[in-house]
């Protein structure tokens, strides 16, 4: 753990050095392991992007009573095959 810890006095020194030309190494050392960008850049990821959660008018979840039932909805709002199986089982 010690190797991954920058003491407070060095944090202050590094912060002062941020705007100094050539100080990038200080920031790299302080943040590289925390961000883990190398792993993110190397990962194999599925194609495309999609909404993460069902559309929700702020402060109101009109379908929440349905969604709290097991297996009813997936992010994006669609009922999944497993959800349909679950509904059938519970009937």
């Amino acid at each position, binding site marked *: 753990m010690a190797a991954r810890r920058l003491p407070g006095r060095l944090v202050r020194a590094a912060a002062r050095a941020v705007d100094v030309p050539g100080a990038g190494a200080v920031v790299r050392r302080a943040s590289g392991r925390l961000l883990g960008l190398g792993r*993110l850049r190397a990962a194999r990821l599925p194609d495309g992007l999609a909404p*993460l959660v069902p559309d929700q008018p702020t402060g109101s979840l009109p379908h929440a009573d349905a969604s709290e039932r097991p297996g009813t909805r*997936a992010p994006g709002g669609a009922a999944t095959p497993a959800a349909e199986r679950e509904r059938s089982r519970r009937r």
Partner: protein
Amino acid sequence: MTTTIARLRAADADPQQVVEAVLAEPAAGPVDPFTDVDPARARREAAASAQALAGDDGPVRPLEGAPVAIKDVVDVAGLATRAGSPALHRVADADATAVARLARAGGVVVGKTRQTELGLSPVGLSASEPAPRNPHDPARPCGGSSSGSAAAVAAGLVPVAVGTDGGGSLRIPPALCGVYGLKPTFGAVPADGQAPCGWWSTNTVGPIAGSVADLAAAWAVMADRPAVDLEGEPGGGEPVRVGVDWAWWGGPEVVEGAVDRAARAAVDPLGPVPVTIGHLDLAPSALYATVLPEVAAALHGPRRDGARLGPDVTLALAAAERITAVDHVRAQQVRRALAGELARVLDDVDVLAVPTTPCVAPAVEPGAWASPPLDEGLVRALTRYTALANLTGAPALAAPVGADAAGHPVSLQLIGRPGGEPALLRLAARLERDGRIGGPPAPHRVDVVARAAAGPAAGGDGAPSPRTGHNDPRADPREEPGRA
């Protein structure tokens, strides 16, 4: 079920006496959770609640007379909103919607609580202003960033406090302080009325409370939802299926022994179903590659005042500049993948269980309170289990499950489907009734109900406490002249 709000009613405590008990010593000894208190508003709202309780004007409002505390980043009319940073300062001219809803439900707004600067540190230390001390052990921090809100609840000053959670801030501080926290589904509680410091795509407003009942009452009010029937069976009469990804939970190299044992003791009787969630190893990087550019963008240009930011925040913003646009988009791809994985797993189980944090409140060197280190390992550890819910928008509930041998609280996290807060709350209520969750009271705890029942409190002269609020000489060492 023992709850502070229920005790207020059962003890027939006068809301005005309760508020005076809070205002008499809002610091609660060494804890010091408030950055500002508003005695005039608290007394005005408490008087209105006393009048409502004395009258016969229909049903009592759900939070009638209950003191509530609000995290610094959230607007309270007439008080400064600073997000724990001297670089951001404005006096709010109106309550945030979440605060207004609590007040309309009978909550008595006492003041604003301390937080880590811009919500960035999950440890609970800040270079920019004093951090609250953990009510279970004042030598240790409260976790971040909703540090003061969790501390105020654990110290018994308020039954309910408002926090925000962009990476774990409604779960990490409650976990380290031995209380309950609920990160609602993304968008379920209005997020207006906050300091402009980013966190736009992961942040939610939510409650911290001392019991499941108080947590549920506050959530229903903040989300404008019907009250949750906590006596109802969480699985609708069917056994609740709890999933655990044991690889994510991790072994002794990841999770402290006391945390592992206490969390397993709560989960094992539920017959956990082993599940596997893909891409979890990328969650921390995806979180940082998402939120740091958002924070940097929020502070870009005229809003950025580097000379007034703490050194840890300066370094975080410098690190954000190393995140490329491609990194940011890839982080969103990770989020999509994780949302799909979570949906797949939650088709087969009702809820996921995992410790809230892999460690108890960490020991820190005395000098760290004024000059916090940048501890990359600790930051990654504290957010190991919390990032998933932020990245996917899912609701998550943190509940105390006892303490280690030295009395430092341990916490279990339950993660549900989007919109599934009532199911999470009902499951937590059942576990609380069964004695599987809960924890010891903090040594530095003020029983305001007992104090109120004992009679008039001293010090109710309307002036802010000399240890809190605008009069606090320690509140902001770089205070600009003229701050109200």
